[in-house]
């Protein structure tokens, strides 16, 4: 069973290689993408089930024993994240078949999506700090290319900012890895958890922890480090925006969660939680305030990503079992709802011909069903019961109250209100208001009946699926919470993780 861990990495890789061998067969690319997406979802669900059933899985690449070789570990947290990633990978593939103009579908598009998924899966599964760096780079370079695939001026400009800040973050990551190796003599996460408390001179550890916080902070787009995100996420094709928005920042959050609950849990690194606490409040507030000012729907949603990251960071800052469980539930809810909103904004653009909310209008009168589908993720994001976002926010805020972090709890509640406000803004502008375009100029958008049935199905299916998941995970919240709780217990008591990787070694 342990050997299954390699499949989530190998599967997208093999698919991408096959596609690259036949670069001009776009139809084959689509078919292979779909096939690999379904298989990946099946494999990751199987892994999640197997971890819940039989405990943590681990694999030593090449048969080299734990601290010497590269270890891959699948615990509840990584399997949950992996399942979400494969779900979003599959829906994005379906969505892009409908949303991307076949003439513009670049012959690198599908291979790059697969390589991106490979990087993300690798990052979730690796048990080695340097290997994590490698997977981050795999993920980043695929996202770089995806951003500029069409080569339009604003894409190039957004990509410049994105590439520069991420290269900087990689350089910091590398320096932190070097210092950590110099101190501990190992980069295996489980081994680090054992060895760091035994260090004779742990003073430098606070510097290393801070460096890691900064690199992951850049990737997760937390408060003072987020400026690359709203500058670049609204430029690529909407399917690319959706997969980046849904998954990339969450990999950064995952790394923060993993590092500051399993590895850096010493008195020297305790100050990190204090920093995380204030960073989380500021991230929530600046994100949502930035969103309020925007009229481009993609930019508005991009700022919301930042705001939501704040809640996840808040959960890590409290790091009680309830908080971590709440944080994970929040991540799951957010990946589903956020990606769904990006998909929906693509559909809205198809129907109205504009990304600008001021030029949209009258969608409710014309497409009531679409309006309902929009309301599901939008209200979930704002935290309206009984949708998934309500429970996620409730758990995180309860944990905050338990930890008596009143100021941040107050910020979180206030930000929730502003989130609702900006979702209502989209609703008012795009759905409620009359169509501002004169009758004569209405041809800038396309009517529903002008879309081919392939486009309709491919764009609607992911939205319906993710919308249903938002409702179902709200109505049957308990199974999700049980999984999250288990992940939290595993993270906060790393002995199981250490045992799974190092076996019986002292």
């Amino acid at each position: 069973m342990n050997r299954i861990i390699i499949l989530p990495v190998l599967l997208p890789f093999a698919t991408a290689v096959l596609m690259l061998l036949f670069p001009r067969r776009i139809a084959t690319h689509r078919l292979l993408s779909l096939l690999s997406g379904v298989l990946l979802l099946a494999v990751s669900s199987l892994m999640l089930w197997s971890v819940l059933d039989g405990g943590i899985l681990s694999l030593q690449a090449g048969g080299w024993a734990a601290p010497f070789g590269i270890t891959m570990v699948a615990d509840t947290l990584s399997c949950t994240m992996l399942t979400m990633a494969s779900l979003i990978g599959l829906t994005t593939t379906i969505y892009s078949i409908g949303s991307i103009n076949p003439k513009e579908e670049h012959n690198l598009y599908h291979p790059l999506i697969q390589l991106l998924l490979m990087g993300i899966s690798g990052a979730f599964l690796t048990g080695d700090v340097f290997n994590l760096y490698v997977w981050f780079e795999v993920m980043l370079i695929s996202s770089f290319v995806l951003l500029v695939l069409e080569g339009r001026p604003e894409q190039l400009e957004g990509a410049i900012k994105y590439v520069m800040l991420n290269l900087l973050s990689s350089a910091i990551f590398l320096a932190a890895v070097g210092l950590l190796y110099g101190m501990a003599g190992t980069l295996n996460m489980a081994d680090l958890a054992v060895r760091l408390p035994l260090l004779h001179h742990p003073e430098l550890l606070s510097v290393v922890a801070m460096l890691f916080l900064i690199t992951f902070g850049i990737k997760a787009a937390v408060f003072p480090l987020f400026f690359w995100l709203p500058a670049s996420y609204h430029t690529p094709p909407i399917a690319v925006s959706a997969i980046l928005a849904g998954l990339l920042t969450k990999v950064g959050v995952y790394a923060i969660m993993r590092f500051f609950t399993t590895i850096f849990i010493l008195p020297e690194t305790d100050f990190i939680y204090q920093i995380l606490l204030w960073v989380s409040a500021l991230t929530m507030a600046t994100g949502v305030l930035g969103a309020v000012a925007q009229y481009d729907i993609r930019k508005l949603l991009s700022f919301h990503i930042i705001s939501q990251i704040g809640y996840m960071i808040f959960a890590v800052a409290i790091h009680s079992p309830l908080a971590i469980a709440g944080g994970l539930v929040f991540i799951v809810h957010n990946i589903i709802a956020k990606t769904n909103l990006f998909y929906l904004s693509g559909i809205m653009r198809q129907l109205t011909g504009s990304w600008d909310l001021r030029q949209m209008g009258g969608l409710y009168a014309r497409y009531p069903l679409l309006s309902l589908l929009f309301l599901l993720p939008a209200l979930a994001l704002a935290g309206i019961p009984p949708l998934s976002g309500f429970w996620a926010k409730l758990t995180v805020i309860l944990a905050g109250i338990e930890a008596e972090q009143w100021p941040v709890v107050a910020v979180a509640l206030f930000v929730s209100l502003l989130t609702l406000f900006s979702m209502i803004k989209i609703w008012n502008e795009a759905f409620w208001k009359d169509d501002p375009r004169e009758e004569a100029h209405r041809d800038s958008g396309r009517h529903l009946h002008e879309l081919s049935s392939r486009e309709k199905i491919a764009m609607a299916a992911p939205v319906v699926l993710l919308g249903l998941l938002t409702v179902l995970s709200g109505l049957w919240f308990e199974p999700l919470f049980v999984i999250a709780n288990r992940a939290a217990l595993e993270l906060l008591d790393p002995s199981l993780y250490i045992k799974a990787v190092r076996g019986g070694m002292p």
Partner: protein
Amino acid sequence: MTTLLAIIIGVLYAAGIYLILRRSMVRVIFGLILLGHAANLMIFTVGRLTKGSPAFVPEGAESIITRPFADPLPQALILTAIVIGFGVQAFAIVLFRRTYQTLKTGDLDEMRNTDRLPEKLP
């Protein structure tokens, strides 16, 4: 030797940070490359410098080799990091060139269009 390397690393970091604060795209990419080199050199230095001692010992000869052994891992890490850096930097240079050709400017201060709020509609 360690002191010398430490000074070099410091100079590389200082130069790199100075360069990435410039407005010209070319200087920024040079700065990022220097930062990458500094990090690689740092891994090399903190992995303990040993001279003339082998990393791998033939079977049966463990007793005649004196400590300390050289650690092969930092070099493997650096090699991997260099290869990754090579790919990423090559991409970045092509991207910067393409941007320069499209936007007709290499000044980062003039690239503010994606951050602006859209203008008022007519």
